[in-house]
């Protein structure tokens, strides 16, 4: 059953259809939220909030591609989340849990290779206007059109930002590699 059909059923009160939407899209939301620079410990809270908003506004959703809408909501939740006081409290509560049993942070467990971690960090350093198109293009296989829809910028701008973003990223990576080289002598 496709997303549109599941959405239609969910709108008509079928919670199982909505549960299916959750199951299908949770991995994407989590990945996207993590790629946007959120702490791994916050990802579950963000994902939860994304679906709460999706459900809350399901009535308003119409004729758009569900995933496009979901990406937009994830972006908004991420932005709001950064300002949310509750998150600050939870963060304090979670400090003790940040390191896992093997002494690594959750981020280190996901990005096991130093090279991946360095690139992840460099992407976080990019300005949002470059970061989001790069994430959507390279990690979510989104087309220029889809990126334009999700971000609300023109097609031409998407192309420009991807090109410029890549250039910035290369520079940041060279710098990061150089620092890493110096650290290891």
């Amino acid at each position: 059953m496709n997303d549109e059909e599941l959405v239609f059923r969910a709108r008509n009160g079928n919670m199982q259809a909505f549960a299916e939407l959750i199951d299908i899209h949770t991995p994407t939301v989590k990945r996207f939220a993590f790629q946007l620079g959120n702490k791994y410990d916050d990802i579950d809270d963000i994902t939860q909030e994304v679906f709460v908003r999706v459900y809350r506004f399901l009535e308003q959703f119409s004729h758009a591609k569900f995933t496009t809408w979901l990406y937009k909501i994830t972006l908004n939740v991420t932005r709001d989340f950064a300002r949310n006081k509750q998150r600050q409290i939870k963060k304090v509560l979670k400090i003790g849990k940040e390191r896992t049993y093997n002494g690594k942070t959750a981020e280190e467990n996901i990005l096991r290779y130093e090279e991946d971690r360095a690139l992840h960090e460099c992407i976080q350093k990019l300005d949002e206007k470059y970061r989001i198109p790069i994430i959507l293009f390279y990690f979510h296989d989104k087309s220029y059109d889809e990126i334009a829809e999700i971000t609300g910028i023109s097609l031409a701008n998407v192309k420009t930002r991807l090109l410029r973003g890549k250039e910035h990223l290369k520079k940041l990576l060279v710098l990061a590699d150089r620092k890493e080289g110096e650290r290891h002598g």
Partner: protein
Amino acid sequence: MDDQLLEKRLDSLKKAYNEMPEEENRSAILAAIKKDQKKKRTNKWLHLPYAASFIGVGMIAGVLMMQYIGDHIPSGEKTEQRQASGENAGTGLKKADVKAEFEELRSYYTEKQKDTKEKLGLGAGFEKWLFLSMEELKGTEANMLDNLDNTSQVELELEIKQLKGTIDESFTLPGKLIEEISKGDPDEKVGRREELLSLQLESYLGAYMQSMVFHEWDLNQATEQEGVTAVLEKLNRGGKGLASANLRKLAASAVENGYAFREEDGRILPYIDFIRVAERLKPNGNKDFIKYLVLRSNKIQDRNGVVMSYQKLGELLVKLERESFGVKDSMIHQTMMNDAQSLYALFVIGSPLNSLFDENNLLKGEVKKAYQYVIDLYPDTDTAKALETHYVQLEKAGFKKPADGDLHVELYPEYLQIPAPQGRQQEEKFIQSIYLLPEELLAAYKGFSVEKDFDILRDFGPFEIMQLYFYADSLEDYGTKYALYSKNGEKPPEDRYIKEQQESGHKLGELLRGYEYGTLYQANDTEEIVGVQMHFKNPENNMVFQVIEEDEGWKVRYMPFQ
């Protein structure tokens, strides 16, 4: 660094991202949704439009899960709530105590499950379709063990009691509920028992559907020997006269629990026999509930949700309208209104599965006929009147499909009293620029920015308050922006808020790209104004700026954009 190397590294990172652990989040998310919805809804009645038969086995898990999480917030969240409310934390609860309690609960669950399966006449293998899963219980136990320090013995007992209650409800057979309701008081209001019957009927239907696969061989044997009609008759008599003992058992329990069998697409399948259930509830069941069940027997969509006959859909809408007038029970009345609303929308705008227009984007002949049928045959009904308005508009457009953005219900039947679509033509549009403050508002802003006294803003509506919010942001007057927030609800302390705003460099004005106009936004259930709907050139960007009426004035909800 060249492009090729960068792409290689991006590809490697993508693989690492894709290997992120996929933990189960569904129940926590559903619990959060339930909690969120609880704040908004007063009518808890299960609302399932008249397509009951499309609900397959997958529905069961969802329905029961929602039952399960109904009043059962994961213990971690409860702990946070307790901490927030300043209630006492740990009282020396031991791990062993929790484990023992849950062990006992699991035994209780297993017993109930076995007993219910037996009574339903189902063989092995249906556990995961029928009831809340054992995994859910394990999850709750794990949560509690994680929060041991913050949980008292009393809270443990309360949790166990709630879970036991949920298990009891989940394993209540429809047959038992039918019996109880039929012995009740006809004047008693419709309540949890009736709601549970609706839920359980839907839930167990999936299990019966699934079980038919296991009875296929027996059914084939029987139909080869006796023919489909005879077998159906015997099944619907509770299995009497059937050679297979398994089939007899299945049919007896299915019929006892409110199901019957019919032929669909060359297969014998169970369905909810609403008419017979309604009959069995007489004479002491609530009359409105019985009436509702009879209406539910009108099957207009197939198992996949495809409308089988638009004419029948039109007839059902008329029936709903006529029957709704005599209904006294508020819950049933609201449910019927909700159903009528959904079905009317299906009738006039269709759905992804039920397009009303053909490949040439012209209204399908059968749909046009169904409209004419309702308009000609039931001219005095509100349904026909609303439909006629819709029909005339379509006719003017040569029955061509409207653009996607214009595909909406312009006018609902009057008895539904749905103001929004009617108001669509007359609703107040705020077409003025958000940043262009009229003199009066500007003066009020100046006063408010100094005194932070809401009395100054008392005469202004939601749109003006939104204007002030944007205006304060554009001036980087974050103190005033903060003062516009509702005093209720979570928000950071003012100094931190102002500091964060100053550091963020994010301008609200950026959100206004493509903004066209605003309208008031009402809550679906209470119709109270809860925000300003911001309309954009691209409707996908539409969002709501949330406000709240407080102390006889309008205030901004913290994090207002949704």
